[in-house]
């Protein structure tokens, strides 16, 4: 699962291949299927792509730690669910339906701490009690799928929490003045 090492040769070949495939896909979709590619590839598109990529990238960094140590963590999804529901719950307890920015950050901090404690308990189960790695990680996923919505229903009577305010934009002085990237980075 891990340790697939590419030589530079393989890597550049892979890169060229991927680039060619993307170009081919673009050509085919514009000519045969008549997709308005230019209308799709806008700044807003790039912005939303970055937004959607953020949680995936964060989870992937977590998965990287597991993968580097030789285990394949398919339980990430479970801990992500717990993190999400806990962050929302903490924020809700701190600030109700109109939380302040501090409440939001505290919510994230609290969720991270509790999720860490949960994964320590899980690690004890894996190491001390020698649980089967893949099976136990699958179980974490199932537990998250069950107890995540369960907690939500207990707190809000619904699988969906009420809408929360979002984070304010963080403006990084140097980056927000770059010519093309600025419109992209300013709103993320």
């Amino acid at each position, binding site marked *: 699962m891990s340790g697939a090492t590419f030589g530079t040769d393989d890597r550049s070949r892979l890169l060229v291949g991927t680039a060619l495939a993307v170009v081919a896909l673009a050509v085919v979709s514009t000519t045969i299927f008549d997709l308005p590619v230019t209308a799709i590839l806008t700044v807003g598109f790039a912005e939303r792509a970055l937004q959607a990529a953020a949680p995936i990238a964060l989870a992937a960094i977590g998965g990287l730690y597991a993968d580097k140590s030789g285990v394949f963590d398919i339980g990430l999804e479970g801990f992500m669910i717990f993190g999400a529901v806990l962050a929302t719950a903490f924020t809700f307890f701190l600030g109700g339906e109109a939380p302040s920015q501090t409440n939001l950050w505290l919510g994230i901090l609290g969720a991270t701490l509790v999720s860490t404690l949960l994964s320590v308990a899980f690690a004890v189960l894996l190491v001390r*009690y020698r649980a089967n790695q893949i*099976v136990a990680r699958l179980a974490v996923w199932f537990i998250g799928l069950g107890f995540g919505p369960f907690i939500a229903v207990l707190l809000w009577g619904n699988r969906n929490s009420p809408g929360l305010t979002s984070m304010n934009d963080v403006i990084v002085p140097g980056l927000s003045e770059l010519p093309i990237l600025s419109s992209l980075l300013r709103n993320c």
Partner: protein
Amino acid sequence: VSDADSSRARDLLDRAADRVLDLTVLERFALAAASTVLALLIGLVIVAAAGYDPVQFLRFVFEGSFGDANATARTLKFTTILTVTGIAVAIAFRAGVFNLGVQGQFVVGGFTTVVTILWLAPTFPTGTVGGVLLMIFGTLAAIVAAGAYGALPGILKAYADANEIIMTIMLNSVAVGVVGYLVEGAFRGEGNRAPNTERLPEYVSLPQLVYDNPDFSILGFAVALLVVALVAVVLAQTTVGYDMVTSGYQQAAATFSGVDAKRIIVTTMTLSGMVAGVAGAVFAIIIQGYYSDPAGVGTYGFDAIAVSLLAANNPLGVVPASLLFGGLDSAASYISINSDIPVQLIDGIVGLVVLFVATPELFRMAAKRTGLGGADR
């Protein structure tokens, strides 16, 4: 490796496998029971902590799963699908291949069944004979399509060094996306407001016996048991099955005794996909009668992983395991109607069961600590 050597190696492996199996069957059964009880107990504690009545919850669980004929029929409906999908998972896990793509293969199979039956129906006679023929052809089409869909990640794992866990998980999304697209557009029934295919003709259905439930026929459960028997025989009595099981125990030993590891991976994934196809066909014909957006057909393929793990990937163990999970599913739909306890709790309990099954050491240590002489053996 000479023939004599290889047959001796096989003999040795055979005896070793026998011993491992003998030792663990009882132990595994006790482990499964202990895990289930412990998970239910934790569930009851959570119910109590959340401010509901745990005794009433437990009563609902039993009433909703086997309380009356209606509940039993509903339980058997879930059990039927979980048995077949569970077998599909068990085949792969037994051979050491992690097929997490049973959900996708199940969707592809079910959709193929409906499309095939709708396409063939005009050329076949109506009535019982036509109905039976259509069901047979529909199921065969599902077996072929889902088998091919399962073989794909198998081939990529065997010959292109792909990771089958990632491949199969991703192919689930591909199946759901593509079938969803087709049901939405090209195969949507005429004048259907919802993204559903046309309904299957009335005569393409199994007769209502024993239970009077329009979504279930006991014959479907019989089909599931037939699949269990077939797969059990294939795994225990045929050379292919033997090669698969030995590969699962130890890849190196299997290769040493002359097993072509790559071919076994492809065979395993194909067989697993074929069984998932049967599950899809049974679901499409008996339960739904048409095909809808696969994002909403139920996660039988994922629940099947839990079923198979609880059964220690033993085909015969899949039947009681899927009875348990089918009962829990059935109880969940009963509870959602008759009480305000959040039903998601049931999914969490299923997860806890799997977690404890993965941790036999926990029970072993607990048994030693309390001096009970081993709750799990």
